[in-house]
């Protein structure tokens, strides 16, 4: 077990508290960098979606996880980013310009949403963000001169400095990875700055934050704007990855997926956004993989336990029939989410921390370590 001895504030805000972090993140980065040369493009596509979803997850964490403002409107921010890119691309605006423009515009709109949201709390804020998402969806369907309405827009292949970057190329993956890494590093720094501290203070107790001199309104709007801008950047990548966007892609369903990202991943740390994104994107391909391969594996096990060839084939066809039942994947997916919410409210990252601590403290691990310590003042409990 390692004890970190901190002597001043600089030690407390280090991005890498000790050399172990550098080594493990270095290895992770190296693996991510060689991935496109080792993995199939099917897996690489999944990784690209993980990067995009994780970027949105980080954005949502800033707003929901750290500022305590729930949002079911992030699909709309993603849509604004995606449509800005698709629209500007039509006029041959270069990628860096429309990428930044998309983030900027989405950020401004996020701030505009933030203002009315100042007076709303909890479930009412969620309703407000849902209405915002519905308005955006409606605008996208109606404003045909810009968005092409319900017919949707084709998004041309990304062109970076005159070089085409197809959506399946390693370069596109590196671009998505770079956006994610920059977002994470930026957010880590943000959280160590006075702004980030103010966000967390607002989350923990608005009254306490205000009495400490935090301008709650200003920081809430800032949080909305930053979160929206990052989602807008992700929207540009999303549009390029799908090569086609239409209003029906950016529905409440997608916003719920983003909330699930941080719920499953863990809403108290940025790790949660990445782990949640991996879950959301890869669970479906993983279940597909099980569907295809489990029947053969189970038949193999049956044969190993002395079943005849005929019996093994019989078992295989029965398992295959069960595995390809319609909606089975959806049911499994739903059950996993329910189990997580019930038994692991800290999400995947919380589970990982518990496992790590269990081994570090073995045999002295106490369950109560992760018990919720915070006790709210009565006036804030029911908001």
């Amino acid at each position, binding site marked *: 077990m390692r004890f970190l001895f901190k002597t001043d504030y600089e030690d407390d805000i280090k991005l890498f508290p000790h050399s172990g972090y550098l080594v493990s993140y270095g290895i992770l980065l190296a693996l991510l960098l060689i991935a496109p040369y080792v993995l*199939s*493009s*099917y897996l690489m*596509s*999944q990784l690209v*979606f993980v990067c995009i979803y994780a970027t949105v997850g980080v954005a949502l964490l800033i707003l929901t996880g750290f500022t305590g403002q729930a949002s079911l409107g992030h699909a709309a921010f993603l849509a604004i980013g995606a449509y800005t890119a698709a629209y500007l691309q039509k006029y041959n605006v270069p990628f860096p310009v429309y990428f930044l423009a998309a983030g900027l515009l989405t950020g401004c709109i996020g701030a505009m949403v933030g203002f009315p949201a100042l007076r709303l709390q909890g479930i009412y804020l969620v309703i407000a963000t849902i209405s915002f998402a519905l308005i955006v969806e409606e605008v996208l*369907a109606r404003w045909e001169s810009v968005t092409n*309405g*319900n*017919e*949707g827009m*084709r998004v041309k292949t990304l062109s970076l400095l005159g070089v085409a970057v197809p959506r*399946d190329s390693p370069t596109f993956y590196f671009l998505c990875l770079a956006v994610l890494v920059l977002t994470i590093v930026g957010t880590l720094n943000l959280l160590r700055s006075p702004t980030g501290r103010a966000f967390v203070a607002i989350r923990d107790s608005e009254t306490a934050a205000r009495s400490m001199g935090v301008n709650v309104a200003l920081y809430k709007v800032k949080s909305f704007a930053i979160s929206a801008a990052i989602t807008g950047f992700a929207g540009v990548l999303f549009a390029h*990855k*799908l*090569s*086609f966007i*239409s*209003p*029906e*892609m950016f529905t409440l369903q997608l916003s719920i997926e983003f909330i699930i990202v941080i719920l499953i991943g863990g809403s108290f740390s940025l790790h949660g956004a990445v782990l949640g994104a991996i879950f959301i*994107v890869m669970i*479906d*391909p993983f279940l*597909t993989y099980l569907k*295809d391969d489990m029947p053969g594996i189970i038949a193999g096990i049956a044969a190993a336990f002395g079943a005849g060839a005929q019996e093994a084939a019989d078992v295989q066809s029965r398992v295959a029939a069960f595995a*390809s039942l*319609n*909606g089975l*994947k*959806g049911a499994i997916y739903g059950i996993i989410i329910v189990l997580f919410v019930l038994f692991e409210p800290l999400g995947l990252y919380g589970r990982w921390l518990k496992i790590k601590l269990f081994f570090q403290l073995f045999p002295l691990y106490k369950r109560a370590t992760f018990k919720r310590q915070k006790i709210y003042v009565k006036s804030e409990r029911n908001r």
Partner: protein
Amino acid sequence: MSKSFRAFGLAVSAVVLTHLPAAAQTKVTNEGISASEIVIGTHQDLSGPIKGWGVPVANGMKMATEEINVSGGINGRKIKLVVEDSGYDPKKAVLASQKLIERDKIFAMVGPMGSPTVLAAQDILLDAGVLQLFPLTAAEFTFKFDAAKPQERLKFNNLLPYVESTRAALKYMIETKNFKKPCIMHQDDEYGKNVLDGFNQQLAVMKVQPASITSYKRGASDFSAQVAKMKSDGCDLVVLGAVLREPIGTMSEAKKLGWEVTFLGATPVNVLEVPALGKEVVEGLYAASNFEIPYEDTAKGKVKDWLVNYKKMFNADANTQAIIGYNAVMTFAHYANKAGKDLTGQKMLDALESGDKFQDIFNSPPTVFSKTNHLATTVTQVQQVKNGRWVLVKDNLMF
């Protein structure tokens, strides 16, 4: 020195020249064809908002596959059909298509479901040289192709496009019944927009002014405002760019108001569920359609056997969706058969473009493609609900 340079130059230009025509050639994959098997793939919505289409279509495809395999396959090769669930989510459709190409090594994508899902995954298929055959969306991008882009030749569709079928049916209705004030109520999405386009184009050609244009959100269940508006605008024909529940909802609303008006649905209205659920409310409803819907007690011969087999296999009544899925695989099998024993991607493409006719067992208009036309048919029928059943009013309609 200069000699070797010239030789080098000649060599380079020779290489360039021999490769230029090759670059303009369509690349078609030969993956998925083995001595005993042809692997085809599809992605369907088995769990999302349009699973009412995805599930029966997948069933129809499975049934066709089984029938072909039982009767000896295609030139001795069995068909292996791999079905993936997209849940009508373009992201999942992209991943499913990549999985089908890389893991299952499909030869062709047959009957994939939905406009955004098919469009998001389209380039991936075409770039890999995989044929995109008969998708379950009648949008233009599934058959219109740019001759300058060779990979686009891999797209074929056999569904009746919404624009063309709406135009043909509307033309017939206005010409025979002399309607003066046609209106439209359409679903607020890409499909509804297609029907609206067809409606507007045909009225412009016939120099008739639309009396009223209204829309509704997908999933809406209350149409009182739309019906009241159309009634006050004095419509005598209402075109429904709707799917399943909406024609029933709209017509019962009109009945409630005591409004006698004629309704004409676009092709997706022409499904068994509409008269089955709507009962007497939808009596007299017209719809554009592609082929006659068979009923078990009146069907004869092959169609009768088909209906009985389907029920036995899936424990559900066959519907239009199942027929479309069944036909997608059957059409594939017809052209794969024609491509011959030594099937390759190029031979399949040639067979599809050969102009050879495919006639299904349901007496649909024949399927024919050519080098310039990758849309099977635009011949439309008009049917009407009489005594709870769809009955043919007029076929062989064009606009």
